[in-house]
């Protein structure tokens, strides 16, 4: 009776040891990723609007600086900032400003986010090529997305129901659109997206649906708009002028739906990260901005 019990204990303890070793390994793996000894790798995560630009920058930078390693992932501005708060990235990309509550959470975690404006972007309003509507005022767009206007006929189009497409709520573009277009920048305005707005998980999802559906309307960063989508000219008010988005109309501030794009670092950047950010703000990197359909910061 005595022997089996001691065996059982030995078995259990060896099992326990195995568990502990596995647990210890996984802890070290998750805990040791950012910063630490492997400083040469810069973790860069966040906005899906910026991800292509960030990838192009990372490639160009690694070509001219063979020692640098930059890993870029998307997921949305909210995702990037959440990762910054949890200190699991070096640079967070965001297509909106950090929110006060996010700033507070970061500071509570001992992270001090530092903001860099790295490019500008126009948000294009896109529809299917079969849709005869060419121009909309900001108020009309707001009414469409808040559910006041439900048929294309009401804005000069065919008798078709309007299908509203939007990015998910973790997208900086979604938040920007809500605050600046639906609410016209008014902090006390509590307008929300109509409940039947389709929330699609990616820019690509929006493009695919608009390409095949003449009822649909969507919005997306100008860098993501391809020729098979029709871009709507937008005006500040019903009187016009109606302006198509382009780098030129963003720089001269004619196109009304444009915003800054940001990168956030944990504390004042140093070493490799500082060198990378300095390069991003250089004319060489800002040329890539223009190539990808974004707008360079004050040239």
């Amino acid at each position, binding site marked *: 009776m005595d022997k*089996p019990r001691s*065996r*059982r204990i030995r*078995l259990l303890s060896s*099992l326990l040891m195995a568990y502990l070793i596995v647990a210890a390994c996984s802890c070290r793996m998750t805990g040791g990723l950012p910063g630490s000894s492997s400083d040469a790798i810069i973790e860069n995560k966040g906005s899906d609007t910026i991800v292509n630009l960030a990838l192009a920058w990372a490639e160009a930078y690694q070509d001219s600086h063979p020692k640098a390693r930059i890993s870029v992932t998307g*997921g*949305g501005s*909210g*995702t990037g900032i*959440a990762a910054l*708060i*949890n200190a699991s990235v070096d640079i967070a990309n965001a297509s909106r400003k950090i929110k006060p509550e*996010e700033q507070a*959470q970061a500071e509570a975690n001992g992270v001090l986010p530092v903001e860099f404006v790295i490019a500008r972007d126009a948000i294009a309003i896109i529809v299917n090529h079969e849709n005869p509507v060419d121009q909309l005022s900001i108020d009309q767009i707001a009414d469409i997305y808040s559910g006041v206007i439900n048929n294309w006929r009401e804005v000069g189009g065919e008798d*078709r*129901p*309007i*299908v509203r497409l939007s990015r*998910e*709520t*973790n997208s900086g573009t979604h*938040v920007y659109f809500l605050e600046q277009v639906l609410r016209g920048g008014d902090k006390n305005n*509590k307008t*929300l*997206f109509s*409940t*039947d*707005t*389709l*929330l*699609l*998980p990616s820019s690509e*999802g929006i493009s*695919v*649906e608009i390409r*095949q*559906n003449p*009822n*649909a309307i969507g919005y997306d960063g100008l860098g993501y708009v391809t020729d098979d989508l029709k871009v709507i000219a937008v005006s500040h008010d019903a009187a016009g002028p109606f302006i198509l988005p382009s780098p030129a109309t963003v720089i001269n501030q004619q196109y009304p739906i444009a915003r800054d794009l940001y990168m956030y670092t944990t504390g004042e950047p140093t070493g490799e990260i500082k060198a990378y950010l300095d390069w991003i703000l250089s004319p060489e990197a800002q040329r890539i901005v223009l190539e990808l359909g974004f707008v360079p910061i004050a040239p």
Partner: protein
Amino acid sequence: MQNFSWREFIIPCLIKVSGYSAILFVGLIFLFLIHEGAPALVEIPVSTLFSIRWYPIESNFGILPLIGGTVVVTLGAAIFAIPLGLATAIYIAEIAPRWAREILKPLVEVLGGLPSVMLGFLGILVVTPFVRTTLDIPTGLTAFTGALILGAMAIPTIVSVAEDALDAVPRTYRQAALALGATEWQTIWRVTLPAARSGVLTAMMLGIGRAIGETMTVMMVTGNAPILPTGLGALFRPVRTMTATIAAEMGEVANGSVHYHALFLIGIILFLISLVINIAVASVVFRQRKRAERILS
């Protein structure tokens, strides 16, 4: 001798550990869900929780549209997949000639192994436009599209498990029925299928389980608009399921925020729903076995 007894001890022990570990893991997962999700019940007023608006970045945490969305998509998938899956299983097990059976069964299993992202892509590129133009509805990103694709994903599971169950029915049952003058269809419907009932029910349950838990495909094809489904028309409108909500929003939430707790609360509800389905089916299977034992004794 020493070696022999050691092995006799360790193997049953390992088997026992793996047996209990399932219970342990389910228990731990449930405790974790409760721990992370229960605060939401305190932080979010009940009136908000049972409102019909889900828009978490403005603190609207109405979960009814999400539950409704999952129910609509899952029921739609079940209505479509169960008859088709069972019919396929019956054909493969009872009617098909040997060569057809040897081709069909592996093919169905390959279908079951398709990654859901791929089916999602197929969904948005092919099924969505097809549904929109054929049914003449504003958009093809609807619960119906989701149900079609989820049904297609559940069918292989249903076929595979149900076919095994039908195959396990002793040949003598069928021979006895046929000898008594029953037609082939009467034999299948009145003898083979009832005899394989517990396996067939398990097949349905696993199929529904696959549909209810599926995330990626649903997120890609159902449009994710949190509209409370009312009536049959809801099947042809966009919906937002619980799984898609968790998947789409988990990445953005800060640990310990109200939104984070709300997402775990959705996880608890999802867990409870699948628990109820499991218990319901298990009780039916159990009751049936008892009756069978009574007849045999």
